[in-house]
């Protein structure tokens, strides 16, 4: 397969124009770490955007970083960390889950709208993207948004790039909000709660003024026989101490213990990166976003019918499920049990991803609108055709 690797925006425009004139569908890629998410595609050439990797601007006191869409997330993390900052939405490193060599690029992070445990407090990539520049599927360079955190000038096209899986535009530059890292953190671990009781406890914690910045639950089967419910507190030490005592009084559990900063960080990185279900065991992995209070009910409805492993993040609003590949990775059963929200097949082999809708099917009017939105950027379907929806 041909691989095109533009070094400048002008070259990128030329390459897309060429592809348009020859009607060659392009597979947009950064470093390919998330190639396994989405439907398989029939493309004739790869458009490799990893050349756009320069850090154009990083102004910590302005809370902003502008970088090439091909910049490595790992490198940017280090850069931010040196100034005591981070992406507050905690983008995960899905490399172990997906069998990839590293965590990929900023462009991929945005295209998949990644977020971690702090999603429930700080939002996702879509909440932190400020501006983008790139080339549309019409072969035209455009930019949108800006570099300031407060901006309502024109439509929020930067947000539209989030979760678009490279189907709208080939991005060259992305501008994100950077925020100060918490000075310290601690995690209260409740032991022995059932799924339902854990969801209730996490809901109570989130309804309190304790400013919980992570709420996850590992059921007994996934946690050495004793279930664990994790509640994270971040901030300055005197504040954490006060909130930890308050939280401990609020919640009841058969047993509990504390994780101090280092252990807490390691625990949340593992949850963020889906390590509990990341073993390369050939199982398919689903990511379900539901109303938090419905997480346990959903699992209860499924667990007697399907052989599965699971855990909860986002206070129950995010359910990770690992299932066998049989019966189309149980797609129909999972989607039928879904009370609200959506289910995305994050890990499955290529043939299965060609048979089962990877993304949640949409109501007809919404699906038609999404097709028109796609056409407004990419009228002939030159970018990642079929990645999100089957090409009709």
């Amino acid at each position, binding site marked *: 397969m041909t691989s095109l690797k533009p070094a400048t925006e002008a070259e990128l425009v030329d390459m897309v*124009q060429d592809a*348009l*004139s*020859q*009607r060659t569908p392009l597979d947009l890629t950064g470093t390919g770490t998330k190639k396994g998410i989405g439907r398989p595609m029939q493309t004739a050439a790869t458009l490799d955007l990893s050349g756009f990797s320069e850090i154009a601007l990083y*102004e910590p006191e*302005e809370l902003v970083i502008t970088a090439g869409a091909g910049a490595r997330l790992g490198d940017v993390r280090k850069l931010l960390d040196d100034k005591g900052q981070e992406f507050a939405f905690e983008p995960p490193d899905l490399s172990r889950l997906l069998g990839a060599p590293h965590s990929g690029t900023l462009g991929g992070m945005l295209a998949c709208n990644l977020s971690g445990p702090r*999603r*429930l407090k700080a*939002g996702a990539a*879509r909440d932190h993207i400020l501006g983008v520049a790139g080339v*549309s599927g019409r*072969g*035209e360079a*455009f930019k*949108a948004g*800006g*570099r*300031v*955190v*407060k901006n*309502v*000038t*024109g*439509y*929020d096209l930067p*947000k*539209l790039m*989030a*979760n678009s899986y490279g189907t709208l535009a080939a991005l060259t530059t992305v501008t994100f909000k950077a925020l*100060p890292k918490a000075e310290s953190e601690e995690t209260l671990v409740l032991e022995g709660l059932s799924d339902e009781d854990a969801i209730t406890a996490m*809901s109570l914690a989130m*309804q309190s*003024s304790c*400013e919980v910045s992570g709420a996850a639950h590992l059921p007994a089967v996934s946690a050495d026989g004793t279930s664990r419910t994790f509640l994270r507190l971040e901030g*300055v030490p*005197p*504040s954490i101490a*006060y909130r930890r005592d308050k939280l401990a009084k609020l919640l009841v559990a058969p047993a509990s213990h504390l994780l101090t900063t280092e252990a807490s960080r390691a625990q949340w990185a593992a949850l963020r990166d889906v390590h509990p279900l990341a073993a390369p065991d050939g199982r398919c992995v689903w990511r379900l*976003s*539901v*109303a*938090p*209070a419905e997480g346990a009910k959903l699992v209860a409805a499924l667990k007697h019918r399907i052989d599965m492993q699971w855990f909860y993040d986002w206070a129950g609003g995010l359910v990770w499920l690992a299932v066998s590949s049989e019966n189309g990775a149980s797609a129909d059963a999972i989607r039928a049990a879904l009370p609200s*929200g*959506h289910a995305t097949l994050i890990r499955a082999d290529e043939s299965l991803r060609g048979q089962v809708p990877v*993304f*949640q099917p*949409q109501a007809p*009017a*919404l699906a038609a*609108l*999404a097709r028109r*939105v796609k056409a*407004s*950027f990419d*009228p*002939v*379907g030159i970018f990642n055709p079929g990645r999100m929806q089957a*090409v009709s």
Partner: protein
Amino acid sequence: MVAMPLPDKTALARRREIAAALRQFVPGEGVIEAPVEMRAYETDGLTAYRQMPLVVVLPETTAQVSAVLKYCHEQDIKVVPRGAGTSLSGGALPLADGVLLGLGKFNRILDIDYANRCVVTQPGVTNLAITQAVQHKGFYYAPDPSSQIACTIGGNVAENSGGVHCLKYGLTANNVLGIEMVLITGEVIRLGGKHLDSEAYDLLGVMTGSEGLLGVVTEVTVRILQKPETARAVLIGFPSNEDAGKCVADVISAGIIPGGMEMMDRPAIHAAEEFVHAGYPLEAEALLIIELDGCAAEIDHLIERVVAIAEANRSNSCRVSQSEDERLVFWAGRKAAFPAVGRISPDYLCMDGTIPRRRLPEVLQGMEDLSRHYGLRVANVFHAGDGNLHPLILFDANDPDELERAEKFGADILRLCVKVGGVLTGEHGVGIEKRDLMPEMFSEADLNQQQRLKCAFDAKGLLNPGKVFPVLHRCAELGRMVVRGGKLPHADLPRF
């Protein structure tokens, strides 16, 4: 004055027929065509512009909204959606040949769900009413635009409204979980819900801040937060704008994100102090109000650090609020800054640019120069944490020349904001006010791509035309592909 598109004479001649048709969908008093009754809708918060609508329709259900829009779509009639009409950019200004669709009767909160920490509400409910409905349980809705007692949540979605707390708690876009909306075709679409992240394309993100050009929002799900246990404010005076600006940068560099961080310049300090007597330091060139919220242990710790940073930046006065009453007094001056300026001038224009914060001194200097050039006074209030400037240009609308100068002055300020790397509008929207300045920030290709997105939602361009975009292109024209040689190869192949 910004010119609106010429009205369509056919539509004007059909007023009675259109009103009669709308009565089939919205019974009784829900359709208004008497001029005296329509007068209430002739302007919004940008009062220099007035226009009577063709007909006003006030539906009460999503089905009615859908029927009205479907009819207008079939009949090629323009529609301007409206919440409470508090837009400062003319977003809800009626069109002479357009139906004004008021959402005021969508005034019920539908579901308060503490377990999922969200509220499902109709769009005509005011921003503050959401907080009032949940505050007995200690909850609130975070975005707090200064018009929050009047502005509606539907309007907040349309404008992506902010407020003084959005540095820490985000804009409307970061606090809305889902919406139900109606397209101009009458199709009803749900995006998001009580779960996080809407599926597939982030159309919820695009709808937020779309200024009524893409669809009509008929239901909104917002997340609610538990109120911080307590909050304290620090009032700090500085001998120069540079010192105050440096203090803001140092606070953020120290890893502190305050709940609010507001700055006022000398004219704004004096106007506010004369109005509310908050005890502001009149000798200061710049004033910062920094509010820390959270638990008491955290606030005590952070205030100590903020005060030290202020002292290192040559602050010449510093007061920490010792009680909730005192904290509210500190804020009273800032919150009354607009009416306070209203007392010292017959009229004022409130501008809304955002700049990279460190460029503040040169932007303020540039404004002083412009102030001399146009012979008009300006006072500045500033959401310092996020770089959002609100220059208030003082003028007298009875003097047409002053209005024109004020508008030109405002436009020059916004050009200056763009020049230093900022944007035309931080939270008030483009509307008609900044419409013709869009090319200062965006190229033709940028604007065309935005309009193509508009075409995906509203191919006939019937929703709120004349707002946001300086040049209206037909969708067919925008959709044309110009590939090398001027024609698209394989034009016979099906498009998908």
